[in-house]
C-alpha cells in the first residue's frame, strides 16, 4: 500500500510518462553514459518530444503551465533512472527560472518558446572559483559601455556549460554596493568573447556536463539585462528557492531506486541457507530506508504544493525540502551498497553509481550546511517577530 497523495489525472500522467522514460530510455544506458561521461542528448530529445521541458513554462509561451509540484513529480521519476541525466534536465529549469521570474515580456517571448519545446537547453551560472557558498564574493564584472555591456570573469562548475544555448548568469555591476551591486544577464552561446573551459572529471553525476564559462571582453546588447540593475542576488536567491524542492525530489527518486534494488537483491541473495532478507539486521535497514524515503517524499510534495499555493517567503521550507531528502538519499544509497555487500561495490550492479551520484545532492544548489543556515536564519526571524 502506498501513500495516497491525491494526484490529479494530469499529475498521474506526468508520473507515468516520466517513469516510462526512466525505464525504457534511461536505465538501459545509464551505466554506459556514466562510464563514458557522455552527455545524454538522445534522452534530452525524448524529454523534449514528451513535452517535459515545457512543464513549468506558462501556456502562452508554449509550455504546459505546471507548477513546482508537477516539476517535482517529473524529476523524481527521472531520477529513479539516473540523476546525472535528471540534473541535465533540472539545471535547464534552473537556468530558465530567472527569465520566467524576472524577464521582460520581450525576453520571455524571445527565449521561453524554444526552451519549452526543448530546442534549447539553459544553464545557470553563479558559482566561481572563489565564490561557492559565499556567492557575494563573485568577481565577474559587467560594465555598462553605452550601447552594450562588457563582461569579464570566469564561472566555475556550471551544469550544461557548453551544451546549453542560453545562460543566465550573475555578475557584479557595482562592486561598491555589495549585495546590491550584482545584476543578472542572459548570455547566448556564440556571444562575442564568451567561451568554455575544460569539462570537469567527476566522482559521480558523470552523464552531466560541468564546465567553466569564460568571459573575455564579452560584449552583449543592452537588452540582455535580466530584471533591474542591482537585483542580481535577489534573482539568484529566488531562483534557488524555487528550484530546491526539485533537488529534494531528485533525492527521493534516487533513494527509491536504491531501495528497490536493495529489496530485490535481499530476497534473492542466499547466505547461511536463507535469503538475506530474513536477517533482522537487513530487515531493519530496509525498514529505515523505506520510512525515511516516504517522509522525504511527503515533505517535498507538501512544500511544493505550498509554494504553488502562492506563499511569498518560502526560503525556509524550500531549504528543508532540499536538506532532508538529499541527506536521506546519501544514507539510503550507502545502505543499499551495504545490503548488496561486495556485489554492491562492483560496477556490475547499479548501486555503487547511485552512491557516487548521491553525494552531489548534498553539495550543489547550496550545500546542506548552507540550507541549515537558511532554515536557522528564518527561525531566528520568525521567533523574533513573535
Amino acid at each position, binding site marked *: 500500500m502506498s501513500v495516497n497523495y491525491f494526484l490529479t489525472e494530469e499529475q498521474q500522467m506526468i508520473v507515468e510518462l516520466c517513469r516510462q522514460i526512466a525505464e525504457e530510455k534511461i536505465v*538501459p*544506458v545509464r551505466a*554506459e553514459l556514466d562510464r563514458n561521461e557522455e552527455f545524454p542528448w538522445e534522452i534530452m530529445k525524448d524529454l523534449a518530444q514528451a513535452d517535459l521541458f515545457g512543464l513549468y513554462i506558462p501556456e502562452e509561451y508554449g509550455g504546459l503551465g505546471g507548477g513546482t509540484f508537477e516539476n517535482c513529480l517529473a524529476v523524481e521519476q527521472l531520477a529513479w533512472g539516473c540523476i546525472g541525466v535528471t540534473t541535465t534536465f533540472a539545471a535547464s529549469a534552473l537556468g530558465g527560472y530567472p527569465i520566467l521570474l524576472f524577464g521582460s515580456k520581450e525576453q520571455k517571448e524571445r527565449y521561453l518558446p524554444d526552451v519549452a519545446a526543448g530546442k534549447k537547453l539553459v544553464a545557470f551560472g553563479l558559482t566561481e572559483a572563489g565564490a561557492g557558498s559565499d556567492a557575494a564574493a563573485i568577481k565577474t564584472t559587467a560594465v555598462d559601455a553605452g550601447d552594450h555591456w562588457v563582461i569579464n570573469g570566469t564561472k566555475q562548475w556550471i551544469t550544461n556549460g557548453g551544451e546549453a544555448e542560453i545562460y543566465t548568469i550573475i555578475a557584479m555591476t557595482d562592486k561598491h554596493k555589495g549585495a546590491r551591486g550584482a545584476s543578472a544577464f542572459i548570455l547566448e552561446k556564440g556571444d562575442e568573447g564568451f567561451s568554455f573551459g575544460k569539462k570537469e572529471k567527476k566522482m559521480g553525476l558523470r552523464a552531466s556536463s560541468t564546465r567553466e564559462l569564460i568571459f573575455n571582453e564579452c560584449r552583449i546588447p543592452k537588452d540582455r539585462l535580466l530584471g533591474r540593475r542591482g537585483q542580481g542576488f535577489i534573482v539568484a536567491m529566488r531562483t534557488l528557492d524555487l528550484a530546491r524542492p526539485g533537488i529534494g525530489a531528485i533525492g527521493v527518486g534516487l533513494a527509491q531506486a536504491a531501495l528497490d534494488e536493495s529489496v530485490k537483491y535481499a530476497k*534473492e541473495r542466499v547466505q547461511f541457507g536463507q535469503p538475506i532478507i530474513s536477517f533482522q539486521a537487513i530487515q531493519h535497514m530496509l525498514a529505515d530506508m523505506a520510512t525515511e524515503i516516504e517522509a522525504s517524499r511527503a515533505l517535498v510534495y507538501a512544500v511544493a504544493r505550498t509554494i504553488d499555493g502562492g506563499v511569498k517567503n518560502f526560503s525556509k521550507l524550500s531549504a528543508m525540502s532540499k536538506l532532508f531528502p538529499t541527506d536521506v538519499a546519501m544514507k539510503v544509497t550507502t545502505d543499499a551498497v551495504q545490503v548488496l555487500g561486495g556485489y554492491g561495490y562492483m560496477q556490475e550492479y547499479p548501486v555503487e553509481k547511485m552512491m557516487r551520484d548521491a553525494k552531489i545532492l548534498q553539495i550543489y544548489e547550496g550545500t546542506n550546511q548552507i540550507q541549515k543556515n537558511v532554515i536557522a536564519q528564518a527561525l531566528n526571524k520568525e521567533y523574533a517577530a513573535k
Partner: protein
Amino acid sequence: MISVDKELCSGCGVCPDVCSYGAISLVGDTAQVDLDKCTLCGTCAENCPADAITIEREETGSAAELDQWRGVWVFAEFRNGEYAPVVFELLGKGRELADALGEELCAVAIGSGSRDQAEVLGNAGADRVLVADSPELEGFSEDVWARILSRLASEQKPEVILAGATSMGRAFLPQVATMLETGLTADCTQLEIRAEDRALLQTRPAFGGNLLATIVCPNHRPQMATVRPNVFRAPSMDFEDSGNSGRQIEIDEIELSPEDLKSGVRVVERKVEDLQGPDLANSQVIVTAGRGIGSEDNLKALEQLANCLEGAVGATRAITDAGWISHHHQIGQTGATVAPKLYLGFGVSGAIQHLVGMQGSEIIVAVNKDPDAPIFDVATYGIVGDVHEILQLLLQRICKGAGQTGG
C-alpha cells in the same frame, strides 16, 4: 458460432484450463464463453470430455469444386543465381505428400536465369517444372511474383502449394493466397495428408513457439503453407540413390506478357552483405550471448564455439544494445524468433522478452553463474558456473581436432 450445451456440461473445469485466451469461465456449474475474447480456435471443444461444446462452421466449398484441384506445387525460390536450399527440402516433403495423394509434384520457378538450372529440381523429386524466366525478373518484386504464381495456380489448380518461409516467401505468398482467396499457414513444422479426406494437416508454432496449432483448410483450394528453412531434410540429390534417375521431367516455360511484368516496386540496388556466420533463422545450432558473458573476449570465444558447431551466434538485447554485435543477431520479442535443434545460452538470464524468442528450441542449454536465473526454468540442461571457464572447457572439448575455421 460457439455454444455450450448446458445439459451436457458437467462443469468439470477442463475447458477454462485449456483455453489460451482466457475466454472461458465456470459460472455455477456450466462453462461460459466470453465472445469478446474467444477466437473460436476449437481447443475447448476438442478437449471437452462431455462433448458439450460445439463450434459451427459454415461449409462453403462444394466437394465437386474442390475435387478439380489436384497435385502438389513447390515454389522454387531462385535468388542470387541459384535455387534456395529450402526448395530442395520442400521438394523432399512435397514428394511424400504427392505420393500420398497419388498426384504429381510440380516445382514453380520464377526469376532471371532460373530456366538454365531447372533440371536440378527434377533431381530433387519434381515431376514437372514450370519456369517463368525473363531478364526482367532480375530483382525481386512482390507484385510481379504474386501475379505470376496466382495466375498459374488459378489456371492449373494445384491442391497444395508450399513455399519457403524466407524473406521472399513471406513477402509474396500472403499476396498469392489473398488473390486466390484461400488459406495460408505460416511457418509450418509438420505437414501430412489426412488420408480420409485428402486434407493437408499443417502444424505450426504460435506465441513464440509456446503453442503448436494444427491447421486445416477444408473448403478452399489450394491449401497453402510456408515452411522455415531446415525444418525438413533435403532428399539425396544423387540420381542412383534417390530413385529419381531416368524419370521424365517436363519443363514448361511460361509466356510472360509486359502486363505480367509491370511492377510498383523498383529495386535500385542489391546489397549482399558479408554476414558474420550463418543466419539465425537457418541454423540448427545457435550459441547465444547474454549480458553475463561480461567481456568482448568471451564473445570471441563464443563465436568460435558457434563456428565449430556450424551454428549461428545469437544475442540478447543487452548485448546488441551495447554494440558488441549487430542487431541482426538479436533473439527475442523485438528480434528473431528461433527454434533450432540446439540452443546454448551463455550468461543469458532469461528475461521473458528473450524467452519468447527461443523457447521453441529443441534442446536448451543454459550456462549462468546465478542458479536462480529464469533461463534455467526452460533449460533442458543447466550449468551453474563461470561463463568464461565453461566456454573455454567446451572449446577444448568440442573444437579440438582439425578442420575448423577458427574464430
